[in-house]
């Protein structure tokens, strides 16, 4: 009995520490300490579980923990920051797999030992394995597309919607039937199998660049599966942690879809990634003015106020360190450098922030869209590094554009605009950007890292 209480207390404390840990992420300077508290909570919960009387042998447990640690360590310490999207998708797979397997084991044990399974418990178990299994394969596909060993382009075939609907209908039918007849184990395993297929078929037709939204949804689903595990096992710390994860994934996907100008239902029902017929204006007959690294260096070297707009291209080129170096040179010359971060710049929420932080850019120089949008007018130069859609003025001006209405950074209001990209190819949304043709815009073509290295050399030489 006193062991039972010990377990309960560790679970309660762990729940509180998880909440405090996530809360600490609202303040950058408290975040590390807060997350250490959350890790402590996890440790407590593990210890509290290990002392449970139900546990009779520790051999296999030790093996599992050891294997997990061996897998986890490189996932934590060696994965480069630039591989973060695929790394996180990969982890969702692990989390969902653990939840699913626990559900299957619980069901199997109850069945073989002849415990009656109540309707409520069965519902929780079925929900758990359904969402869990779906998330396992869904996350795997997302991981594959992000790591580029699966084709990034949408994999589509005729009648795909019909197949998906049919699969879902059968799964839901089994779900309902199982609540009435929990002992129908073939149905249970069939449902698990169908869920893995649904996960595949749901994510394969979605383009690689849309994966971050998928990732957040999967985060949310994995959380809900964990919460369902908590309901099935009567374990509150699971319910709480699951609800927190569920809320987090949900909120991130809402934030993303808003900032990408997609309706949330459009995201929820998997209809994203389809290429819309764009009626956007094209750039026929317009010309761009190019600039050499030397001239760019001249302008940047003497600028009083520069706003850097990083985008997905910065991540591709790995140019964050060069940006910081250039910024330091400009500051040494008496200029001021700020960074304007669009909420969906890059391919993951917070993508630009984490890369710039890695390059040692202080976070108080990073400004959210709302904070800095009024300041472009006062800036000498807006330096756009591999960003495209997030500075496309068509979002403000062209009602025919697919991104019309999306909030964008007002880089076009700066006195001069310098754009670093490799060529004239469009960004994620696949549309022309009229900004590149404006008279006060100069294009510095080439890989962002290479271009910046040359600019830095010129500024130093000056």
């Amino acid at each position, binding site marked *: 009995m006193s062991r039972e209480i010990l377990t309960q207390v560790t679970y309660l404390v762990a729940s509180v520490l998880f909440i405090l840990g996530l809360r600490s992420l609202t303040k950058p300077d408290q975040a590390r300490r807060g997350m250490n508290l959350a890790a402590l909570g996890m440790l407590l919960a593990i210890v509290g579980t290990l002392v449970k009387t139900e546990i009779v042998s520790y051999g296999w447990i030790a093996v599992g923990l050891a294997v997990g640690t061996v897998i986890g360590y490189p996932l934590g310490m060696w994965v480069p920051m630039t591989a973060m999207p695929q790394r996180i998708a990969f982890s969702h797979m692990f989390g969902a797999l653990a939840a699913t397997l*626990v559900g299957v*084991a619980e069901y199997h044990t109850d069945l073989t030992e002849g415990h009656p399974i109540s309707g409520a418990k069965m519902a929780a178990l079925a929900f758990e394995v359904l969402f869990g299994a779906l998330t396992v394969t869904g996350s795997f596909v997302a991981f594959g597309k992000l790591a580029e060993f699966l084709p990034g382009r949408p994999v589509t075939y005729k009648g795909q919607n019909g197949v998906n609907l049919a699969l879902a209908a059968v799964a839901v039918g089994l779900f309902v039937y199982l609540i009435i007849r929990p002992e129908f184990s073939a149905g249970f395993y069939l449902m698990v199998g169908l869920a893995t297929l649904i996960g595949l078929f749901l994510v394969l037709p979605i383009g690689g660049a849309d994966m971050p939204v998928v990732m957040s949804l999967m985060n949310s689903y994995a959380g809900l599966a964990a919460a369902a595990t908590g309901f099935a096992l009567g374990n509150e710390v699971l319910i709480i942690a699951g609800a927190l994860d569920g809320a987090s994934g949900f909120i991130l996907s809402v934030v993303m879809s808003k900032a990408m100008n997609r309706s949330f239902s459009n995201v929820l029902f998997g209809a994203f990634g389809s290429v819309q017929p764009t009626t956007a204006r094209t750039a026929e007959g317009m010309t761009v003015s190019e600039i050499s690294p030397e001239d760019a260096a001249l302008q940047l070297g003497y600028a009083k106020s520069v706003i850097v707009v990083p985008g997905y291209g910065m991540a591709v080129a790995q140019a964050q360190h060069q940006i910081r170096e250039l910024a330091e040179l400009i500051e040494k010359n008496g200029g001021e450098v700020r960074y304007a*971060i669009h909420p969906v710049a890059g391919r993951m*929420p917070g993508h630009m922030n984490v890369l710039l932080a890695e390059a040692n850019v202080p976070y108080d120089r990073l400004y*959210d869209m709302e904070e800095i949008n009024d300041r472009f007018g006062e800036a000498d130069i807006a330096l756009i590094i591999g960003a495209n859609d997030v500075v496309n003025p068509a979002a403000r001006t062209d009602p025919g554009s697919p991104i019309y209405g999306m909030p964008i950074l007002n880089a076009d209001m700066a006195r001069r605009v310098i754009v670093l990209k490799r060529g004239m190819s469009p960004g994620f949304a696949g549309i022309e950007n009229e900004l590149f043709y404006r008279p006060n815009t100069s294009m510095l073509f080439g890989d962002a890292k290479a271009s910046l290295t040359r600019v830095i050399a010129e500024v130093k030489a000056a």
Partner: protein
Amino acid sequence: MDIVDVYVFVLAGFVGYQVISRVPALLHTPLMAATNAISGISLVGSLVAAGSGRNTVATVLGVIAVACAMANVVGGFLITDRMLRMFRRTGTTNK
């Protein structure tokens, strides 16, 4: 399953919503890593499945689940800390 657990879920959902919606965009990537780490809490279920020796299926599935969840715990907290260590203000250093 207990009705009180529904209260716990609803309240935790409120708390989660309020807390997460105040996390600045700056830390959205660490947030994702952190929730990954916290999702490792399914250890509290998988450890029991792996260690209670009730049947082979449960033990095998349980051990796999323990390994998966533990990988998330170890990897998740480490990478979150690694990222958070990088965020610094002007004038402070990380070393």
